């Protein structure tokens, strides 16, 4: 099960600075822990997050083992035109999730 929560304002005025919040479901296993029998638990984290606004990349982040499970990423951008925001999370073991949100500029 992979759930994601996105919070983008539905409407904004042109030029407004808007906050975008994303929450992605992921265990973010560090790769430094061991099981009770001493075996290393392999690393399983999200390594990269990016956001495109009408095709243009406006935000990108690399993620590392010290980042908590279910990473919450929030950032700001300027509302320029009506369209869609595309979010993408890429990680270990072929993890790849996407989500979209639309915004209307008044």
């Amino acid at each position, binding site marked *: *099960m992979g*759930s*994601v*929560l*996105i*919070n983008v304002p539905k409407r904004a005025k042109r030029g407004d600075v808007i906050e975008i*919040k994303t*929450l992605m*479901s992921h*265990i*973010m296993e560090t790769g430094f822990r061991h099981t009770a029998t001493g075996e290393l638990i392999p690393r399983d984290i999200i390594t990269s997050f990016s956001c495109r606004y009408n095709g243009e990349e406006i935000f990108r982040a690399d993620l590392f083992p010290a980042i*908590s*499970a*279910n990473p*919450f990423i*929030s950032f700001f951008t300027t509302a320029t035109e009506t369209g869609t925001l595309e979010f993408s999370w890429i990680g270990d073991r072929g993890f790849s999730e996407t989500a979209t949100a639309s915004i209307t500029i008044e």
Partner: protein
Amino acid sequence: MKAGRTIAGVLLLLAICVPLLAAEIPADQRRSGFSFMGPDTQAIQNDDTANPGMLWVLDGEALWKRKAGAAGKSCADCHDDDSMRGVAARYPAFDEALARPVNLEQRINLCRANRQQAPPFAFESRELLALTAFVAKQSHGMPIEADADPQLAPFVAKGRELFLQRQGQLNLACANCHDDNWDKRLAGSAITQGHPTGYPMYRLEWQSLGSLQRRLRACIFGIRAQPYDYGAQELVELELYLKSRARGMPVETPAVRP
């Protein structure tokens, strides 16, 4: 200096050895664990798009609609969308067939076994936590009233007994901290009053959602006693007593706690 330390030690020992006053917290002084947290953690809980517990609620919603078991039925096939409103506020509740109280997780698994003819989910599995969170979220803001059923009275009493019972190598009862010392701190962390208002809840320490029984087991481990197994009758009774102790406080599921 040394004498002073000895006296302090003796005083501390005295404080620990004083018989339990068993003074319950007056209704007007009861506080949810929420009020012990910093503003940053409170903000995570208050914003449904920042609260990681909502990820489980979303998963639970999907599970609610998914057909399961030999009966080929989903939860939604029998229960209306709004029918779970207020249910979590009443659990643990008395089960007539078993003649004992069951908690919300056990109720879900009973429903799976009897109505869906599906294997039960393991305690603390993602599925069981998700369904429980989805059901409990619908009682958000409603007052807890788990002990209204008179058949539950003997079980509430047993739970209270366990709450007051000193146990473990540290010889502590729940009440020693959560009734008598809730206004103090232990190793930098607030000792809360132990009201189960927001379960299943997201603990930042767990990096996951967890049930009230997980919390109780962790506390029992902390006093260096042998924890009861998940689903044990003792834990359900303790849950029930804690709910009766929190009577009238609003449900916060899914809560966030440090």
